[in-house]
């Protein structure tokens, strides 16, 4: 049983790290400020999430896992709030998002 938990935990850690790297790659490759935020979003959700889940498997049923779960909750509530504040201030400062088409009525 222990080897199985270790494999699942290791998989989560590796895939999570992979997504964190892809998010960083996205920040480098995407063309403008607003699209780059989407790249950073990958690191925030899938990257951090899977790494924390992988660590929870290592923690087992203990207080450590509860604390990791709380870290995940804090991350998942604060990171979109920060992203929104960042995007909103950029928009109000006058940075125009580059778009392919404007929807009718906007």
């Amino acid at each position, binding site marked *: 049983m222990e080897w199985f938990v270790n494999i699942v935990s290791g998989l989560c850690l590796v895939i999570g790290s992979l997504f964190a790297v892809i998010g960083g790659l996205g920040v480098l490759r995407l063309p403008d400020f*607003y*699209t780059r935020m989407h790249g950073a*979003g*990958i690191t925030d*959700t899938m990257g951090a999430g899977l790494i924390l889940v992988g660590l929870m498997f290592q923690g087992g049923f203990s207080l450590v896992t509860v*604390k990791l779960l709380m870290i995940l909750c804090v991350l998942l509530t604060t990171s*979109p709030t920060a*992203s929104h504040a960042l995007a909103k201030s950029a*928009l109000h400062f006058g940075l125009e*998002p580059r778009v392919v088409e404007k929807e009718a009525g906007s």
Partner: protein
Amino acid sequence: MKHSLALGTTLFGVWLLWSGHYTPLLIGCGLVSCLLVVLLSRRMEILDEETAPVHLGLRPFIYYAPWLVKEIVLANIDVAWRILQPRMPIQPTIVRVKASQQGEIGRVIFANSITLTPGTVSIDMEGDIITVHALTREAAEFEESGEMDRRVTKLEVPD
């Protein structure tokens, strides 16, 4: 009163989970500090349904969170795949979405869910109209379909 009770029990639960030392002295310290926080919040008159959203109950965790996690994972894989392709097939789009939630907490949950899903970021909010920047046309269409909006609204009013 129900907000004080909710805040007090939550605070004490968090204390118990974080300390891990269950001696009378430390539990007593926890009780005293939780009570002090509740009393201070009452005196500051910041204890309302915003600081202790008891009216939502456990519904966000039972009905909404699993669906949101599924959507986040799917969106993550989609955006990651697009970033990795040499041509990067993205169509940045701006759409305006109506938030049909009554309370502020509901709208915050909705706007944060939009931002949390990779491929869509809520960049502005005026009244009940949220401006969403989407990385792809599909992501923009998903927000326009209003499924997320309906699910968040359902959290406020149980059917």
